[in-house]
């Protein structure tokens, strides 16, 4: 089992969900995050003068899948989240030791 963590642009969420759903990956957790990368920040204005905001709002999608599902999930996220501009985000793949479904107590494959 692997956990896929994808940091994406807010406005690509619907496209990413749709792309994953088409490949039957339905479950996920989404959170609002702030981050920075090569995109740099933007400059905002106070009454007078400016200040730099370099942590920009992004969304983080997390889903746990079987090892063999990792490549198609990554493909789906890349194809739906990419715009080609700086700030498109990152994907991380992390090993998962165990998964449990709270309702039934099922473990691992049965739980994801």
């Amino acid at each position, binding site marked *: 089992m692997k956990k896929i963590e994808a940091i994406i642009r807010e406005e690509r969420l619907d496209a990413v969900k749709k792309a994953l759903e088409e490949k039957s990956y339905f479950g996920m957790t989404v959170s609002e995050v702030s981050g920075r990368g090569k995109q740099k920040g933007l400059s905002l204005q106070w*009454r*007078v003068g400016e200040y730099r*905001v370099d942590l920009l709002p992004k969304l983080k999608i997390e889903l746990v899948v079987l090892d063999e599902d990792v490549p198609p999930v990554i493909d789906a996220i890349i194809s739906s989240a990419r715009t080609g501009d700086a700030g498109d985000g990152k994907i991380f793949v992390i090993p998962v030791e165990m998964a449990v479904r709270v309702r039934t107590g099922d473990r691992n494959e049965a739980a994801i």
Partner: protein
Amino acid sequence: MPINTGDTAWLLMSSALVMLMTPGLALFYGGMVRRKNVLSTIMMSFACLGLVGLIWVLYGYSFSFGTDHAGIIGGVNFLGLNNVGQDPSSIYATTVPHLAFMIFQAMFAIITVALFTGAIVERVKFSALLVFSVLWLTIVYLPTAHWVWGSGGWLAKLGILDFAGGTVVHINAGVSALALVMLLGRRRGFPQDAMEPNNIPMVVLGAGLLWFGWFGFNAGSALTSGGLASSAFVATNVAAAAAAFTWMIISWIHKRPTVLGTVTGAVVGLVAITPAAGFVTPLAGIAIGAIAAVISYYGMVLLKIKRGMDDSLDVFACHGLGGIWGALATGIFATVSVNPAGADGLIMGNAMQLLKQLIGVISVGGFAFIMTLVLGKLVDKTIGLRVGQVEETVGLDISQHGERAYGGFLR
């Protein structure tokens, strides 16, 4: 004189309008600070409704508007509202109940104290602020209100014009704010850390309530409900409009037309027209408002950006500079064609009036500045004006009030 019901209705309504300005100011200020200090900032204004509202009826009104002593201070004849009743005063607002005039004036004292708190938000100790506010109200506000508005006050006798409090409210608050900033110093992290406003829509709501309430402030200061009130009402609105529009354009020239800047401009225009509202034509109000926005904007650039002074919510640039400009502008644009009880200004050929206005600015501003330094130092040595490092880092909402503005994990 018999009571005039129209005047009474308007003055009571105006008192309620001015009252609403203080919670309006609380939102205006509260939206501009970081989210850990929203409630504390709001509380600094709202608490004045309690504290100053009581002091005013106990002894404040008496020492400002009671029987004159040497032009410096009022007397004890109105202590605890003694002799202030349903019949009109023989001196002030003679067509309305004395109580109505008294409560109208109470609202001015309340918001004046609330105004200067904006300079020292996010680091001032609440208990020290309350003690300082009592001292400041008693030793700075009550005498200066008497000088300018009290029967027999020395600036009133000199012929200074202050229709609704440019000198008493705005210069007083603005200059005192500057002195407090010098005593307290900068917030931790200023100016290197970005301190983003937590809620600009709240700032806009506050500015809207201020603009709305300001009709009571300025048009109510006619103390009658006729032509003069109408003239002051229109002058007030155009000055706010001109200043808001001007600030928007300046901000646009530098980069983008910000909302925060535009509503700040409106408030600065309202400040500047305050002393002039019942002495100048509505068209003069456009000039007063537009010029006020330019002065205040570049004053802010100079103080905050160039000098690095942490007058956190720009009280001196908005109320000090706006108030000084308004007081002087009254001496430039005043005309007896608007108000026979006023005077002509520079444009009408009376340069003396401008000089009188300057004397008012220097005497009230100088007195407020020096006394604030003295009283502030006194409170700092005894109670301590500033919270500790941990309390400041945690935020004043939790450290001073045991609350947080946006708590809870469940929606």
